[in-house]
């Protein structure tokens, strides 16, 4: 009996251990969603320094043209290496052969196989996602994981809020039918496991 994915408890526990390391040796908490606004702020600082200097949010992350803050920093490097890390996991640790996913099956069952429609949906979803993350002051990494483990009340409120809004939205968008087995996590396990 061979499993190609790890137990979620093992992956989760190791994410906890990774946090010990970043807290203790780097004095940092895992986070992701600041990086997009930091990049955008850095670009604004470069192309419209006057407007950038007047926006307190932009100066918070990018500083000003006179007193700039680095844009390519610890979290930027973290974000840049997420995809290579996942690639290593998929390529060398997952035995399953996965085709590239253009339109997820759950999506195409509801909205059809159009790639353009799915890409538009992903773009709109990504925009909404980061707008909400910045309004809340963090995302699943910074608020839920890092905040949750520090027992920060903002992290726990954030988790409750995104589930309360996300569950009805997902049920409305994708319905309540069972996931087709070939795309669900079940496909990642050996059939003999059942």
């Amino acid at each position, binding site marked *: 009996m061979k499993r190609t994915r790890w137990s979620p408890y093992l992956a989760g526990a190791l994410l906890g251990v990774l946090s010990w390391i970043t*807290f203790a040796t780097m004095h*940092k908490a895992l986070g992701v969603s600041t990086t997009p606004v930091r990049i955008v702020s850095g670009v604004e600082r470069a192309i419209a320094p006057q407007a950038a200097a007047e926006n307190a949010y932009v100066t918070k992350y990018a500083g000003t043209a006179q007193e700039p803050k680095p*844009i390519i920093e610890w979290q930027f490097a973290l974000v840049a290496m997420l995809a290579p890390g996942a690639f290593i996991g998929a390529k060398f640790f997952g035995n399953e052969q996965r085709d590239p996913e253009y339109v997820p099956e759950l999506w195409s069952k509801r909205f059809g196989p159009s790639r353009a429609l799915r890409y538009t949906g992903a773009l709109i979803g990504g925009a909404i996602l980061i707008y*909400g993350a910045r309004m809340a002051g963090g995302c699943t990494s910074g608020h839920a994981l890092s905040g949750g483990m520090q027992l920060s009340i903002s992290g726990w409120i954030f988790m409750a*809020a995104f589930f309360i809004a996300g569950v009805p939205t997902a049920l409305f968008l994708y319905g309540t039918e069972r996931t087709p087995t070939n795309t669900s996590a079940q496909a990642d396990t050996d059939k003999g496991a059942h």
Partner: protein
Amino acid sequence: MNTLTLASAWIDSPSKLILGALTGLAFGFLLQRGSVTRFSTIVDQLRLKDFTVLKVMLTAIVVGGIGIYAMRAFGMDIPLHIKGTKVLGVVLGGGIFGIGMAILGYCPGTVIAAVGDGSRHAWFGILGMFVGAIAYTQTYPLIKDPILSKGDLGKITLASELGWPPLLVFVPLGLGAIVFFLTLKKWDRSSGTLDW
């Protein structure tokens, strides 16, 4: 401005970048191994069909938190990074985030990691995040007073509000997580999904 100061306006010290890069590599790897780089895993968590996301998150929270607070209890110099609780911003922002997560099928970290796991549509999610980042920085002055400054309770934690030592909070939290996981195991078996 000479080249050195120009570079420092954009790029932090190499040691910090290397540490960040190694962290990201491990982070992305673990997200993939936990299967949360899959659209179906995230959407099925929100549809309450597959609890992988919560299993990963709650285990990371309990293991991570016990370790961090235990190291502090042993006198190690480990600064905390607690975000202030600004109630209206967190509730409204968290709600908007949940809607975006349902449409995209990923969160900000997993959408980037998903690109390395073969998701092509995730690229458009990343593009969308930059659109959202531009929208947020430009509308920040408008929402600052009516939303972001409402209900600011400061940097409060479950420990500070209960008046407990932080490690003690992990007793009910850890036990609660275990009971929740055992309940899920039973439910997973009876519904014929993953038998973790």
